[in-house]
């Protein structure tokens, strides 16, 4: 018997006639409906730049404050209590199995994006040692990606999530290009993938480096905004 990966309740999967007739492999669901429905998907009423859920489709105040090359971000879910609880268990407690919960939404979202090269935001060496995984690449099941960015070793005095907005905005550039980045990125449309878009600082730092690597366009996708 399968159990929901998040709440642990037993899963009752119903096979429909539709699934039988379409001859595709039967996908095993990993989470129960209640757990899935805890998240709030972002609708088309969002900021066209950062992808934040709002009541109209104009550029939001935070995006207007940014100068320099604009970055278009799409986000899948609203960063609400449920998403915080998910992130807490997945990223901070390190429950790697919870990656399964988001693989399907990420796959569907990647399918909608237009890009040539997928670049997930990397984690630094110390985090990798401690956490044992990169929370972003964990969501990728089969999608090919390039690790074109590296994190400078000693940039972090404290994690991004422990800072307020102004401290986040003053974060210096943490990324460098990987040795093979120039060949991989040259004249390509690049999609950055990250977990949460909060101020946009991290993604803009990453985008700047990617442009330096010769990419012709950079957009981003995040799980939550």
């Amino acid at each position, binding site marked *: 018997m399968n159990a929901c990966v998040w709440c642990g309740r037993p899963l009752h999967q119903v096979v429909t006639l539709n699934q039988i007739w379409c001859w595709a492999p039967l996908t095993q669901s990993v989470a129960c409906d209640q757990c899935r429905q805890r998240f709030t998907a972002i609708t088309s009423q969002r900021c066209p730049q950062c992808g934040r859920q709002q009541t109209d489709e104009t550029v939001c105040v935070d995006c207007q404050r940014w100068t320099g090359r604009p970055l278009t971000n799409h986000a899948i879910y609203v960063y609400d209590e449920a998403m915080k609880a998910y992130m807490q268990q997945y990223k901070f*407690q*390190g*429950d*790697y*199995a919870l990656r399964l919960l988001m693989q399907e939404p990420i796959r569907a979202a990647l399918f909608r994006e237009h890009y040539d090269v997928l670049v997930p935001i990397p984690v630094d060496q110390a985090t*990798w040692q401690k956490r*044992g995984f990169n929370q972003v690449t964990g969501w990728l099941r089969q999608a090919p990606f390039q690790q074109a960015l590296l994190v400078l070793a000693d940039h972090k005095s404290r994690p991004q999530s422990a800072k307020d907005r102004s401290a986040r905005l003053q974060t210096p550039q943490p990324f460098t290009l990987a040795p093979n980045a120039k060949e991989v990125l040259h004249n390509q449309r690049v999609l950055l993938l990250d977990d949460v878009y909060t101020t946009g600082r991290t993604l803009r730092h990453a985008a700047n480096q990617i442009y330096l690597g010769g990419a012709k366009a950079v957009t981003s996708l995040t799980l939550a905004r």
Partner: protein
Amino acid sequence: MIEDEQFWGRQIPLPQAPVNSATGITALKQVGNRLQCQRCTHLLAPTDRLANGEWYCRQCLQLGRLTSQLELYTIPEPNRFVTAPTGGLTWEGQLSPQQERAAQAVQDYVKARKNHLLWAVTGARKTEIVYPALAWALAQGWRVAWTSPRVDVCLELAPRLHQAFGQVAQALLYGGQEEPYTYCPLTICTVHQLLRFREAFDLIIVDEVDAFPLATSPMLQHAIAAAEKTSGCHLYLTATPGDQLQKQVANKQLAVTYVPLRYHGHLLPQIDLRVAWRWRAQLSKNKLPVALIRQMKAYLATQQRFLLFVPHVVDLPVITRALQLAGIQGGVTVHAADAERTAKVQAMRDRRIPFLITTTILERGVTFPNVNVIILGGDDAVFSTAALVQIAGRVGRSADAPSGEVTCYCHTHTKRVRLARGMIARLNLQGRRLGGRK
């Protein structure tokens, strides 16, 4: 640098050995062809792996992740406490002769280091009965844990023990605790927190031992066994022991002390059964059983406060609506995920609301003076025998209102209800022999 104190009787996961005498065991041990968590005994699934190839335990993740890289370090418990001959007891209350006898029995078993069950009816003041035994244990320099599967029980208990044992250093541990761990002779914690200890306690008191999820969780039962010294013993407190415990008592594997009378010497109120034929079907038409409405109106007219127990959280809004349509106002709903739960319970205690509509979360650990209880759908599976007896035990807890009514509306007659009535009747029979009054 972690101080030695932190390691005494505990198991601390570290990647490499600390600079003291602590000894380590691997956190995840190979058992057959699987790995087993040495903290919670969970057998790892083949999928419990990280991207870097390490294994991790998902079951006790909330206590901090254990991976195959870590070892659990411990220093055997040294019992380094300053003891007082009185055990630090500052409680000045009086025990009734009934309670006195039970307290003496408990103390004798603790002195003999024997495992023991204190089966005392709801409202018998179990906590106070244990005080003499606890004071004796603390005077011997024992390390004692007072645990419960329920965090609300721990939270309510901590200030009481703090008052009763004013001279004893105490630590309160639970999932959301912000204060750091301190080494104390008396630790009040949830059973989950015992997983952090190894052979630390000479005496473990388990309050509400039949409460969810302890009875069905091998992990928590292991937690108690592992946190107890090999020379230690445990004391179970409950009003409604489950089948397993009752069987152990019957087979003489577990010593037992009964307290069949409440502290004020009155008998338990018996559950009054009423038939509510197809009340669910009625409810879908926004109607409640006529007898129930009449009873509630009578209570409201005489300003008798009461609790209305319903089977599920989803029933709460429907029943509130039906009550409104029937012209009954003033009820407040409470359920487990309610953010204002404590405030609402406090309002009921302060007599600011006439009645609460609630689920089984208020079945134990709460005391309201002078309330009656109505159970709607007592035949539902969520009301176990223990739950029904506990719910009935909310009535008549204070000395100035020692009796009251418990009414249970059922669609069918079930074994659980019958057993609950049987248990109350049996305890009352014992109580009557000891001179209990109606």
